């Protein structure tokens, strides 16, 4: 048993629902008790979908357990096929149904249905949502993809986008446009928007673009092995990654590709002088492996941030994220326990977090700005406007996303100059975020400063001076000074120590 308060991922059958809900003409018959239907609201409320997810729940109750839950499953299965007339169904069990071992796969096989029935085995007590989506999509592809001729023109499939994905809708559109500019037509996008007959057509494409490794890699690997379709390894999030992705496409189709970059504004926005203030901002990055890897590169190479922490919650990506962190001189934090993430952020006191909705809450608690870059998602991660992450427009969007939570250039200087101003002070927060401004409360000066560390004591005047430093750099100043004092073997931090440390770390 493991005590959990908030989770980054749902159970694996929710992953299967993300695939089923993304598709058309597919129905999911889920052996599950009353209450598991809560998952519908993830799609109808958070994603604002205007259709119910195509899922039939058998809704067994305690009194059914002694009787015949298997018959109940078969009835639900038949009812779903009759009512919704899908081209294919997937069948499986939620965590409770897994325990009663009714074997949905075997049961549905005996029913003699005229459409393909794809059984799912999703171990609820050892795996999670992303695995569930990846495995479900793989099983669907394996069952339905048919050997066939390649298309005459160069085409590819886009694999991986699901319902409830982070910006999946807009990423597909941006990527389709990018590929079209490269002279590559999209054969099928799957699972998002695909029907079972579209899945059958997957092998007609010349190669696959793996947009979301978390939810599409198993299918991409299977298609590579069984239908000789290579797949892309670079996810085009960020300027550099997009350019590398374009080169990768060139290698796959065997001819050089040229692209018009006139829509790409991000590099100039980052080079322009207003962005100078971004230099060396200490950021902590946490999310799913793919988005974390992309944002590590963006943060360091394209925004000029200093990356002070990297981690992901999906263990499937632990290995690449560990390797990535090492190349940044860091040790990766691989955990799905948000309390551990919170502790890590608190200890590092970064100036900004690039994270998920969970880290946004952590940031709120610790007073650290946060930009959301990855699932798990909330209703605000489904904006009405076009807001892709991939490609050139994605890079533009990400630049805006990353600077929005921060105090901007000149404002930062003004705060430093007039930090004792009664309105324009630390606690007021960035001026473009409403509702935060509050009157300055005169701090009570503590007589005896509390020791900050086992060995190091802040003297009163140094502590007082520290409080004059603007809030968005105070954490860094405190850490740097303490590190400096430790290095020098000092046990007390005086005003002089503070400024010596400042000079030491000047850049």
């Amino acid at each position, binding site marked *: *048993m493991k005590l959990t308060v908030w*989770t980054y991922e749902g159970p694996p059958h929710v992953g299967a629902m993300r695939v089923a809900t993304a598709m058309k003409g597919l129905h999911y018959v889920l052996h599950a008790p009353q209450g598991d239907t809560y998952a519908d609201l993830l799609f109808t409320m958070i994603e604002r979908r205007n*259709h119910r997810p195509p899922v039939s729940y058998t*809704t067994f109750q305690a009194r059914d357990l002694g009787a015949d839950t298997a018959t109940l499953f078969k009835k639900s299965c038949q009812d779903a096929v009759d009512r919704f007339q899908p081209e294919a169904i997937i069948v499986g069990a939620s*965590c409770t149904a897994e325990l009663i071992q009714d074997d949905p796969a075997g049961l549905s096989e005996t029913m003699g249905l005229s459409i393909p029935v794809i059984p799912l085995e999703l171990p609820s007590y*050892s795996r999670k949502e992303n695995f569930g989506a990846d495995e479900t999509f793989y099983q669907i592809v394996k069952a339905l993809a048919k050997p066939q001729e390649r298309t005459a023109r160069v085409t590819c499939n886009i694999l991986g986008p699901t319902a409830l994905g982070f910006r999946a809708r807009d990423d597909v559109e941006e990527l389709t446009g990018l590929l079209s500019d490269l002279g590559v037509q999209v054969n099928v996008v799957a699972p998002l928007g695909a029907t079972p007959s579209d899945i059958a057509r997957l092998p007609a494409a010349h190669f696959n673009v793996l947009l979301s490794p978390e939810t599409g890699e198993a299918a991409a690997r299977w298609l590579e092995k069984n239908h000789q379709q290579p797949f892309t390894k670079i996810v085009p999030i960020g300027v550099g990654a997009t350019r590398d992705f374009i080169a990768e496409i060139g290698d796959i189709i065997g001819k050089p590709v040229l692209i018009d970059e006139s829509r790409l504004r991000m590099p100039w926005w980052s080079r322009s002088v207003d962005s100078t203030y971004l230099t060396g901002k200490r950021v902590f990055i946490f999310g799913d492996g793919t988005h974390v890897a992309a944002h590590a590169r963006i943060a360091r190479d394209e925004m000029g941030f200093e990356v002070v922490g990297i981690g992901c919650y999906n263990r499937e990506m632990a290995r690449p994220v560990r390797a990535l962190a090492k190349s940044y001189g860091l040790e990766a934090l691989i955990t799905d326990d948000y309390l551990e993430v919170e502790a890590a952020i608190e200890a590092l006191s970064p100036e900004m977090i690039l994270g998920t909705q969970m880290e946004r809450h952590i940031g709120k608690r610790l007073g650290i700005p946060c930009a959301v870059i990855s699932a798990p998602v909330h209703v605000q991660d489904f904006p009405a406007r076009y807001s892709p992450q991939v490609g050139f427009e994605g890079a533009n969007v990400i630049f805006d996303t990353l600077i929005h939570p921060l105090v901007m250039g000149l404002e930062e200087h003004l705060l430093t100059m007039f930090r004792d101003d009664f309105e324009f002070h630390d606690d007021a927060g960035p001026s473009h975020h409403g509702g935060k401004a509050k009157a300055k409360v005169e701090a009570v000066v503590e007589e005896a400063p509390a020791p900050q560390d086992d060995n190091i004591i802040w003297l009163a005047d140094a502590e007082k001076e520290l409080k004059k430093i603007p809030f968005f750099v105070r954490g860094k100043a405190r850490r740097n000074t303490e590190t400096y004092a430790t290095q020098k073997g000092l046990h007390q931090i005086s005003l002089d120590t503070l400024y010596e440390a400042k000079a030491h770390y000047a850049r």
Partner: protein
Amino acid sequence: MNALTPSNGGCRTAPVLKERGQREVFCGLTGIIWLHRKMQDAFFLVVGSRTCAHLLQSAAGVMIFAEPRFGTAILEETDLAGMKDAQTEIDREVARLLARRPDIRQLFLVGSCPSEVIKIDLAKAAERLSQIHAPHVRVLNYSGSGIETTFTEGEDACLACMVPVLKSTEARELLVVGALPDVVEDQMLSLLADMGVGPVRLLPARRIDDTTAVGPNTVFALVQPFLGETHSALERRGARHLAAPFPFGDEGTTAWLRVIATEFGVSEETFEAVTAAPRARARKAIAQAAEVLRGKSVFFFPDSQLEIPLARFLTRECGMTAIEVGSPYIHDALHGPDLDLLPAGPQISEGQDVDKQLDRARAARPDLTICGLGLANPLEAEGLSTKWAIELVFTPVHFYEQAGDLAGLFSRPLRRKAVLHLEAAE
């Protein structure tokens, strides 16, 4: 039968359409979201799966990030394979939890579908843990599993498990049962105090040390229509139920208070003096909101068991017509008084086969459909106006001062539809 009985007879003896099939409802674990706020020294530890944790997180809508007083002990493969002893595992997790949260005085071990299916004995665990952590912490257990409880039945199961450990009393007391927001509870207590009714005890009490007790001279009134098990448990302790319509709207609140007033011999004069002003306010507030509701039709999908009392409120006080009133369960002892008052006409249904019910709703094209979050946007996309049922459980809606807000919850979707002009100008 009394002066309030509708002229065409009520719905108490109307035939009930009983259905079973796919249910689009939450399980009883959901009640933890409001119960842990109500009982400020309680922690709810669900023994369940990742699905349970995910449900609590999703049903809460937004994460209550000030470290919530609930959590899930997630069962892992090793627990299922019997490689670890579940009881030892629970002891360890509880010890860790209580060490971190010394403010916790009551701990509820909450059973889930998986823990019920693999038969983890939480009663045994609660008994043992109570001994270990007494006197500082009391440990109780109940099941909020979907195989046994539907949405609000979770609160019922929670309160029912507290009844056997309530102190005994011989005193003649009124016990008011059901979780209410504090502000509403205070209004109710002040109305009762003004009528001279007392002492009044509450279940659930806000803290463990409160003086709630029960005995043969206790009479109890329910403020929530989903407390069937708690009702039985209190009767087993010798207490007597004061059956009444539920305190929604002017009429419901007055009828509810009148039953208590009669029991405690409150004079008609005093009753009038205490209720006249808030009744007048309630009527005025309802009338404003009811302008858009009058003459409109309403269709209830089953959700919280609040459907019958609310249908009574909407038809009698807001001028609506009910087409179908679905409830997950109907208990005559609890819902009878409201069914008596609900004018005959609507289809009363119990249980759910959601696809068939959706067919009926689409055929009836009601002006307003009350349904769960999973159905609301899909029905809106089909052109129906909807009200999410869960808001009725998460919003202060009881008694006089909230009667206008209650009507407002139903009128807002219709008002919104009227104010939006998204098409091109002609």
